[in-house]
């Protein structure tokens, strides 16, 4: 993955618009967060291989970045995105990596289902 370049990511988002796509969306502060610091309220969410269709995808030029997908009846967004890659299977993988290299958020878009 490379650091987000807004123009390139925007182009990639456009290429998935108005198609049936599978998404992976994840936020996490790690299963050990409360073990290491009991003052941390540990929350996260995970969704994988849900099929959606968005009419407009936008990456906002702020660091870290925010990415939003507008659908006919709703929204998907992720904040904290720092890195992206179009992988060998043509999937747009976006992730927010914190200062120590740990994933804090991920948003991925694919025309084919992700593995299990």
């Amino acid at each position, binding site marked *: *993955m490379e650091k987000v370049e807004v123009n390139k990511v925007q182009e990639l988002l456009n290429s998935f618009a108005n198609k049936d796509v599978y998404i*992976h969306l*994840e936020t*996490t502060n*790690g*299963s*050990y967060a409360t*073990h290491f610091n*009991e003052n941390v309220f540990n929350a996260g969410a*995970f969704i994988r291989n849900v099929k959606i269709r968005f009419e407009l995808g936008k990456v906002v030029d702020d660091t870290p970045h925010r990415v939003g997908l507008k659908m006919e009846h709703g929204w998907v967004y992720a904040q904290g995105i*720092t*890195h992206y*890659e179009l*992988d060998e299977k043509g*999937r747009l*993988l976006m*992730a927010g*990596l*914190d*200062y*120590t*290299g*740990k*994933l*804090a958020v*991920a948003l*991925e878009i694919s025309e084919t289902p*992700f*593995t*299990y």
Partner: protein
Amino acid sequence: MSLQPERHVLVVFPHPDDEAFSSAGTIRLYRNMGVPVTYACLTLGEMGRNLGNPPFATRESLPEIRRKELINACAAMGIEDLRMMGLRDKTVEFENDEKMVKLVTDLIDELNPSLIITFYPGYAVHPDHEATARAVVEAVRRIPKNDRPRITAVAFANNTIANIGEPTFKNDVSSVKQDKIKALQAHASQTAWMMEETTKRVEEGRPMSESWLNFEPYYNYEFKD
């Protein structure tokens, strides 16, 4: 205390590297004694957070990296029977409970282990650890008392000692410490930062406490009935 011979040791943990941190030395000692060891690793740690910055992996490439690391770690520990059980990281507790018990029961029926190494339910911190421990304990509980394999369990929650006391025993694994280090190093995606920190501290003349590399603590899990 030297280890007693076992008929077969079954190791059940959910993530590649759980076995290396907690039990690499113990496993190596059993293998050196000629005891068969099977490791059932439930997931590939697909949801591991450490991808590096700059990143060395993506959410989608991590499982294959960790699969290879697991195979190499097993080589360092001498494990010849590695079972990758195909569950997904962070979802183990949401699987059907009976399916989880059956997964363990099938392994016990096939392998007839005299000892199972897993986590201690209630004191294993990570939800996958807890779900794994619950499945193992329930599978063994259903076996007639005199036929049950023993369970030695790993516990590391912050309230462990306060609630269940000191570990039942600690295996001295100092004679195979290098193999434990190799197993930990094999899980580089999870341990590289830690091994680097250890080296740095030693170079700076303030070594980490080495007790965690020399001793592996366990609790005997006791059934009430």
